[in-house]
């Protein structure tokens, strides 16, 4: 009734989208083939154990397997948002030690730094997981509508406008084209708000959760800066977008967001945009592929990173200010419990080759962790994203990872609750952030206790 393991297979968790490109129907290209081509032992085949796509459920699956010491899976695919906690719990294999040094070096050199950070041990800096693909947050807009409304958008792709310009342009375009919505984004009380959309907005306002980007991965002794004026202003701006001129808003920022964004996540915010009912939308790279095709908006789709309000120079902390793109993506970690460790490491090594990255990108549309490869990819295969290689480049340069420490999950919940409440007007931004700061401080304090 149960199934014994087949020899020489390495079981790796992944969602159906990855499974779909793993094997070819006939002789067509496949990731498995690419792995073999990249030097993986032909005896070793990779078997995908599909898991639910939802990140939270995947974490639970991973957690239950690792807590129970269960194999397979030999390789766990971990969200960049929650790789670090597993590393801290010694539930991953130290790749820096296990990999041949040349591979380690190659990864260190060519991979997007931001994503690598999410796969390192925060204390030792050792690599414990191999990024499979990063994901980046983009602002999608209807170039045609905005231009019709009289705003020049050329150059936005590499140099996004200020929030003020953007908001005015969106409002004009919306009113001009008589659309239902202006700008749609995600502001529901969920991980996506704290890790990404708010993180981006806050960053473009020169704010930060923990006083800059160098303190992201080491909980404990670090400043809490969520009650900073910049952060509060960022909220106020969003409040203006949502509610127009009312309490706790900022002058000069028109109402452009539907009030329902406070209960929206990716799908809900993309739908109106994709249906042509919104001017702009903040979303992940998959949205480019979905709306940039010729059948959809084609050339009319504009893609850029986030508008900004405070330039990097004006920002008080290191690494914030200016445009920003939230960092998502997935890493591969080898289970410490596997008896097929060597084989698993071989698989990972193969994944670290450019060929495989490209294959993954071309077949599945997943950005390669070495973003230089975006430009190298065959546009035929990768679709609309190729057209926006510049924007992708800017995004990779301005990528903001979430502070994914072992405490992040609980802090994230505190943050998105507070921000969502402030967005909704259920609490005043400053008060909400003050309370949040207090709660975060308490949370951080736990680490010091634990750490000692």
């Amino acid at each position, binding site marked *: 009734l149960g199934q014994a393991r087949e020899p020489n297979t390495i079981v790796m968790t992944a969602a159906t989208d990855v499974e779909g490109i793993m094997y070819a129907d006939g002789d067509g290209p496949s990731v498995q083939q690419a792995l073999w081509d990249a030097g993986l032992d032909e005896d070793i085949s990779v078997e995908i154990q599909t898991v639910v796509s939802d990140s*939270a459920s995947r*974490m*639970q699956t991973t*957690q239950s397997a690792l*807590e129970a010491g269960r194999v397979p899976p030999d390789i766990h695919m971990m969200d960049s948002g*929650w790789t670090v*906690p597993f590393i*801290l*719990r*010694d*539930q991953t294999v130290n790749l820096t030690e296990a990999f041949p040094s040349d591979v380690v070096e190659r990864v260190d050199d060519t991979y997007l730094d931001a994503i690598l950070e999410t796969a390192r041990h925060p204390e030792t800096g050792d690599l414990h997981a191999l990024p499979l693909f990063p994901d980046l947050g983009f602002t999608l807009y209807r170039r045609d509508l905005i231009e019709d409304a009289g705003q020049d958008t050329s150059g936005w792709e590499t140099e996004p406008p200020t929030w003020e310009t953007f908001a005015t342009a969106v409002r004009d375009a919306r009113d001009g084209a008589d659309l239902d919505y202006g700008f749609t984004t995600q502001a*529901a*009380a*969920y991980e996506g708000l704290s890790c990404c959309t708010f993180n981006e907005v806050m960053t473009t306002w020169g704010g930060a959760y923990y006083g800059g980007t160098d303190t992201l991965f080491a909980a404990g002794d670090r400043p809490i800066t969520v009650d900073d004026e910049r952060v509060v202003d960022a909220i106020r701006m969003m409040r203006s977008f949502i509610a127009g001129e009312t309490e706790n808003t900022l002058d000069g920022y028109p109402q452009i967001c*539907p*009030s*329902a*964004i*406070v*209960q929206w996540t990716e799908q*809900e915010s993309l*739908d*109106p945009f994709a249906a042509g009912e919104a001017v702009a939308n903040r979303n992940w790279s998959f949205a480019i592929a979905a709306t940039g095709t010729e059948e959809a908006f084609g050339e009319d789709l504009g893609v850029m990173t986030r508008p900004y309000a405070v330039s990097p120079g004006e920002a008080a902390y290191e690494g914030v200010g200016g445009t920003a793109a939230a960092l998502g993506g997935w890493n591969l970690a080898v289970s410490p419990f596997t008896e097929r460790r060597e084989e698993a490491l071989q698989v990972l090594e193969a994944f670290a080759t450019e060929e495989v990255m490209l294959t993954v990108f071309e077949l599945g549309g997943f950005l390669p962790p070495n973003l230089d490869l975006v430009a190298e990819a065959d546009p035929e295969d990768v679709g609309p994203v190729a057209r926006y290689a510049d924007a992708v480049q800017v995004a990779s340069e301005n990528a903001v990872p979430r502070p994914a420490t*072992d*405490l*992040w*999950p*609980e802090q994230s*919940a*505190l943050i*998105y*609750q507070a921000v*969502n409440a402030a967005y*909704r007007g*259920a609490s005043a931004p400053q008060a909400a952030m003050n309370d949040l700061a207090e709660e975060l401080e*308490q*949370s951080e304090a*736990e*680490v010091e206790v*634990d750490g000692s």
Partner: protein
Amino acid sequence: MAAETDEDIVSERSTETEGRQRTGNAVVNWMENLSEAAYAYLLLLPAFALLSLIAFYPLLRTFVISLRENETRGMEPLGEFVAAENYVDILTGNARLARQFLDVSFSSSVPFLELGTPFFQQALFVTLAFALVSVLFETVIGFGQAYVLDQDFRGRRWVRVAIILPWAVPIVIQGMIFYLLFQPTVGFGSDLMQSLGLFSSAPLANSQDAFVIILIADIWKSSAFMALLILAGLQSVDRSLYDVARVAGASPWQRFKLITLPLVMPALLVAMLFRTMDAMRVFGLIESTAGCSTVPSLSCLVVEAMFGGTRIYATAAAVAFSTALVIGLIIGGYVLLFRDTGGDLY
């Protein structure tokens, strides 16, 4: 005929005796001759064996976990023995939870208790309110549905299926239906309620509105549970009692009150008991509609602590036991309240 029976009778006699021996193998005999109490324990054995392995033993272990310290790092998830510290944290609002179990403080003004956070963001209150209101509505509606299904009319079997169907919907889908219904771009629920002046523009993000949505969703689905059990109770009532009552002059309402209700009471109580416990453990529905931070329930806290990513198993275990304690208190109330009505059940 008489003569013929004579023979039957003789042959029959021997067969009966044989028959008796045939049914009487040793195990059966042993069981038959056990005392009533011993026999009862024997019958309970399989159930309690299974429950001990799958339920009681794990709960015991979970309880032990709740007495230890959280360890968020390292292989070992649990630290030292800290006795009731986790419980104290939970009750004082100091647990590492996004929403607190309970967050009240004392004040000098009437009514002397102040909520630290709004009512609908306190897990305990949300859970109690939810259980109270949902079970109340579900009982009434479920009774109504069962009563309808108990009547004889054409197409009754289809109506029965229709009414029971919501219970067959997975919670995720139940959540999805109501999530989409109240998603302004997709469904009309949000607009409708807003135009009636009942809801805000983003009801799923507003604790109060979302609470109502979850209530509606739960009532939609779980009334069927009530209906099914009550219907079974109704079907078991001896119909001749209604004849007696009708001749005695009972109106339909009196028949209901004096015959149906008391006779269905045991089934009704079981239904209410389990609905209450289920309602007090509500989680999936919330998770798939408004989310646990908008409408935190006690189970939400348990799940978030257990699976939230920060490894705070001890807290999770403590919240689970606290939740069980709250449910136990409420159920204890039930049992006391309905001691007599429930007949010899309790």
